[in-house]
């Protein structure tokens, strides 16, 4: 039976139980599901040529053996099989291959197989996200066939492109604009058309990356605001009578309150779902714009859709049947970063502690390819139970990518390699550098802060003002990283800030502190100390004179 049929039969309680019932599990029940499904996956994965390759031909029989025998993996371990789409080596034949960019990898893209079982779970999870996005308390939701979706996510072959396809099989919803048209449009065309259609038909749901949703929301406001009086009349002609009434009412209210028109004045969203990183920077603004606080969902190319917030919007819960979750404590992860040969220990869902930060390790269930896979995301455990949500399973908050990757607004992932590439390509005389992800003080927007030190020759013989450096590096960032290019193109964001340090600062720091500053995301206090040191150096020299 499809979701729509269930809705028509008014099986609301059963629907809640089927899709969101996992929220009522005790941790023991949750672990029973995890362990049982992992056993199924062990049987599939370990006998597959891919599993045999990674385990070196060994076959674990129990979960403990699995965790001992299978090393923690990264995409490199799968690249030769997955990039060549060697289906015969996989635990199960995939139905579809999903891809994403592989920054810093040996190949421009990463591909991940999705099996029939995975897709089935994915559909269920997306519907759970839809349900929870409309719920204001346990058991309540508001979805109807024919609901309209403003959709600001990438189409296939990216993982977000699965959402319309998955929903199509379950419920007749209308995407604005229709997916078949949207795939041939540019991002801005898609937004314009989606908004125009929204003005006629209303918008019930909004799915998007936090940053993109924010950008789209601003353009929605601008689009409804702008134009000459003639085009306004034309615009109103194309609206439904109900929307014309709302529009006029909203205009009147905005004039009275002396503010710009906001999407919430025109649309009443039933559900607002945002995915990606840095969502917390945009959530407040998005709530102000739409009048609904977005619900955060965690979805990735390799693991698919794995977690969702609830009506309380206070931490996300992992679906128990999508992946088997392990958690590397932060100090273990850092130790492993310092010493790559160190094998960090992992904890299971029933072993995590509130307040602790973890790097997540996933084993994709239902015939998936990835086992004990370090997807590169950090979570903080917010609590083991929640009175507000009436849950008894751990609740998490997404922190960021792992420290050696700088992710800006969910768009681009910048690594040490990519910055080195950019510096080398730019031909700029940069002697030393370190990069940090920082946030603007006003609105908390993320940006990449590059602290650079020039070679003395470059400082003397080249034009290397901060602006020139920034322009130069930006050009090369765009050249080596398509996503960075898109960040500028789509969001109009300029995420690079360059600080030029005095020649010799890095060396001095090393000399004084006896340690090397990490290239990516070093401790902010260390960086501040180094910046302060420049002045101390000056003072010291003055004294010496």
């Amino acid at each position, binding site marked *: 039976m499809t979701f729509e049929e269930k809705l028509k039969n008014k099986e609301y309680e059963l629907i809640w139980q089927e899709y969101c019932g996992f929220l009522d599990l005790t941790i023991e029940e949750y672990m029973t599901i995890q362990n049982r499904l992992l056993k199924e996956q062990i049987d599939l994965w370990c006998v597959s040529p891919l599993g045999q390759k990674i385990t070196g031909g060994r076959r674990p029989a129990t979960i403990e053996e699995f965790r001992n025998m299978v090393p923690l993996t990264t995409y490199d371990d799968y690249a030769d099989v997955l990039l*060549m789409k060697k289906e015969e080596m996989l635990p199960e034949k995939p139905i579809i291959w999903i891809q994403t960019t592989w920054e810093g990898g040996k*190949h421009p893209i990463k591909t991940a197989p999705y099996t029939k079982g995975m897709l089935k779970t994915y559909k269920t999870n997306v519907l759970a996200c839809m349900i929870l996005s409309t719920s204001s308390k346990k058991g309540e939701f508001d979805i109807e066939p024919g609901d309209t979706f403003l959709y600001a996510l990438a189409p296939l072959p990216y993982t977000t492109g699965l959402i319309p396809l998955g929903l199509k099989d379950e419920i007749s919803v209308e995407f604005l604009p229709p997916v078949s048209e949207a795939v041939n449009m540019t991002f801005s065309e898609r937004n314009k058309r989606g908004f125009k259609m929204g003005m006629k038909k209303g918008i019930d749901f909004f799915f998007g990356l936090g940053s993109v949703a924010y950008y789209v929301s601003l353009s929605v406001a601008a689009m409804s605001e702008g134009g000459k009086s003639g085009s306004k009349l034309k615009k109103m002609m194309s609206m439904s009578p109900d929307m014309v009434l709302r529009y006029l009412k909203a205009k009147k209210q905005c004039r009275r309150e002396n503010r710009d028109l906001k999407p919430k004045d025109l649309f009443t969203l039933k559900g607002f779902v945002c995915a990606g990183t840095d969502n917390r920077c945009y959530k407040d603004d998005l709530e102000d714009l739409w009048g609904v606080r977005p619900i955060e969902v965690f979805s990735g190319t390799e693991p698919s859709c794995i977690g969702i917030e609830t009506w309380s919007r206070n931490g996300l819960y992992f679906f128990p049947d999508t992946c088997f979750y392990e958690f590397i404590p932060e100090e273990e992860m850092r130790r492993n970063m310092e010493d790559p040969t160190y094998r960090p220990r992992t904890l299971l869902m029933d072993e995590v502690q509130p307040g602790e930060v973890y790097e997540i390790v996933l084993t994709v269930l239902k015939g998936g390819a990835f086992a004990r896979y370090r997807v590169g995301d950090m979570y903080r455990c917010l609590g083991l139970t929640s009175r507000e949500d009436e849950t008894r399973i751990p609740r998490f908050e997404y922190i960021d990518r792992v420290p050696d990757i700088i992710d800006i607004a969910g768009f681009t992932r910048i690594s040490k390699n990519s910055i080195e590439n950019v510096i080398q390509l730019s031909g700029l005389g940069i002697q030393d550098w370190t990069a940090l992800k920082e946030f603007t003080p006003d609105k908390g927007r993320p940006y990449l802060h590059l602290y650079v030190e020039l070679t003395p020759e470059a400082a003397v013989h080249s034009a290397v003002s901060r602006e020139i450096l920034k322009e130069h590096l930006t050009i090369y960032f765009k050249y080596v990283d398509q996503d960075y290019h898109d960040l500028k193109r789509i969001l109009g964001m300029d995420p690079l800030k360059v600080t030029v340090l005095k020649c010799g600062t890095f060396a001095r720091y090393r000399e004084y502190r006896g340690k090397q500053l990490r290239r990516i995301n070093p401790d902010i206090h260390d960086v501040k100390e180094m910046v302060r040191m420049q002045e101390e150096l000056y003072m010291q020299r003055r004294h010496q004179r």
Partner: protein
Amino acid sequence: MSGYVYISLAALYCYLFFMAVFLPAKKNRLIFNFMAVLLTMILWTGGSLLMRLQVLPSYRFWYHVSLAGIWLLPYSYFCFIREFCRIPAKGSHRLWGILLLAGTVINFATEWFLAAPELVESNGRMYFVYHMGPQVCIMYGLCVGAVVHMFRLVRKTRKRDPERAGKLNALLLGIVILILGNVGISVINNFPLDILAGIFNAVIMFYSLYSLRLFTLTGIGSRGSCYVLAIGISVMAFYNLAQTMNEVIQEKIPSMGSVSVMVVVVVTTVATWLIYLVMKMLFDRIFIGEEASRTEKLSEYTMAVSSSLRMNEIFQAMVSVLERVLNVKKIYICVEDEDGRYPMVYSSSPLDDRSFSMTGDHPLVRIMEREGECLLLRDFKRTVEYKSLWEDEKEQIDAMKVECFLPLKDNGELVGVVFLGPREGKRGRRERFDNDDISFLRSIQSVSSIAVKNSRMYERTYREACTDRLTGLLNREHFLKTMDEFYEKYKNSSLALIIFSVDDFKLYNQLYGEAEGDEALRHIAQIIRGTVGESGRSCRYSGKEFAVLLPGYDIFSARGLAENISAQINDINRQRGEDDTYFKALTVSCGICAIPYAATTARELLSNADLAVYHVKRTGKNGIMVYSDQFISEKTGGAARDQHRSKYEEYAPTIYALTAAIDAKDHYTFQHSKSVAHYAEALAREAGGSEEFQEIVKEAGLLHDIGKIGIPENILNKKGKLTDEEYEVMKKHVASSVEIIRHLPLMDYVIPAVIGHHERYDGRGYPRRVAGKDIPLAARILCIVDSFDAMVSKRCYKQSMPVDEAVKELERGAGTQFDPELVPIFCEMIRSGRLKPILEYHVDGAEENAL
């Protein structure tokens, strides 16, 4: 005019309306029968109306016309229902017609059954008074008989095909109302209850057509029908109302009295136009709306399909039209492949499991081939063929929730099968496929079958013409064409070309056979295709060369891609080695050139990239080079000699270990190998071989008998002639040597020399029995010096042969055992003393016993 007249008028109009609708329609027997029903209705109602209006020739005449309509109506209904129930006409069926017609004719002539009514005037108004006798029961009895028979036919059909019979319910209700109306006329005198019942009947027929879609109404929504009807209504309205309207205008608005006629004409014209519009809307909405929409979509589909030869585009259009018109959510398409199977190649959603496939003898395929018609699942389940379906196959079909199969058949050949899921109705309810749907599917089928067949043929031909059979990449011809196209398109931006040439591929084939060689090429092609993806075009440029064209790429990016591909190719056999099978490492020499940085024309681009590859090959292979005026970029450089030296140095400890093992087992072979290496290097130098070649031959000399490590000592050191069996064992040392060297992948370049050192120039040697120049040069050198050293050495069973004698022996064997060009060179070196024979070591081996 009395109000009763209006009732007749309305009824007549309804029937005329239907008649006008059906007149231009494409007719079949069913439609003809339905039109006969309409005609009898018109005779009845029209006759009745004209009778009441007492139109000429006489009311009596029109009475008989009306009566003919009434009495023939049951028979026309009977024929229509029989045709609808698909029951063939029999003599007994026709009897009703003959009797009723005869009765009507007799009554017209004699008025025996039912006389014409009497026209009576009362209070200034005219009334018809009917006088009925019992004999009228004969005619009405016949009518009832025909109706009862008709209901029996319906009952029969209801048992056989309940769905079809169910569609008649409304029409039968109309007939019942008609009968009641006719009975009622005798109860309420003078009120045309029968005609009122006729109006209800017309409404019911209208409803039947609208909701049950009893007919396929093709081509009836013409503008002409609307004009005729609008004019008809207007004429009647004008005829009845013009005078009244004129009077009203003159009375109420005296000022307009002079133009009142004009006003009436204008109002009538406007009214006619409005009536036309209403009629058109009615036609579009009710009768032809869906029909026209289907026709329009079918025509769009035909256009789309005929303008494309790409199978995917055709499938996309087919799925789209079926989804839109029939509201089918799940559609799967299976198309015949080259092996005669029918795998699923397309479905309405990319998330569908497309692993379903049917063999040529699948029951569904057989039935589709035979019938070539749309088949509903429920009908398929009742066929005999269904019984031979495996449970697994049944489950697969059930899992797909298929309701209908549509064969794509062209000239008797089944090209493919389309699986259609359930139809969804307006409220999401499942609906069955009806006649219209099946007829629409037939149209889709006829358009698609040819299109799919053509596109399949086109794609196959195109694929064969453009792609390389082994690797599936573009072939050289098509690649060159693509390059010219790309050049025109990208000459003002940038276009990069990378050529990969597999190093030592001939050797690879020699080592592992051509099948392995082909496998390696396929693997390399897969890597290139996977890495280049949609960014460019890849081709197999020649036997062992691949080319990649990258529009929009600069040299830097192209080089990055080339490095990426090279690294993956280098990894191929490293990974394969993990299962204890060692293969030679695969490497590629790669040349890059790009417009506008290092070339200005397409030909120059190609030739420069070729030059870059050549340069890599010349300077040690396994490298990447970017073409410029000078070669500016090298990944691996240095002379080949250095490379071999480094390889040799890397393996030197292994070679020493192996030769030491031989030494321990058989001291002669150790010494012999050293001497052979010495002679071979000298002969190679004298024959004009490069330093690299001399090095290879020397190493081959050292390793040529390494396989003897596996020969039993009793054979190896036998004092006396070897038996045939022992000789066979001894011969295996060549293969053993190769087996050992194969495990040193970087030393594999000595294998051709080792494998051929016992081959004879006349082809009678072993192990491969190759002859003449087919024996590698290094092997021919080894053969001479190996024999020479064996002859001049002292063995336990023979004294050493004098050097002069040995030289003569070589000369005698020139052209049969030895290379006739190399022997004189070697002999001259010995005779002139430029090469001193090594004679000091003691010999007790047995190999040359066998020589």
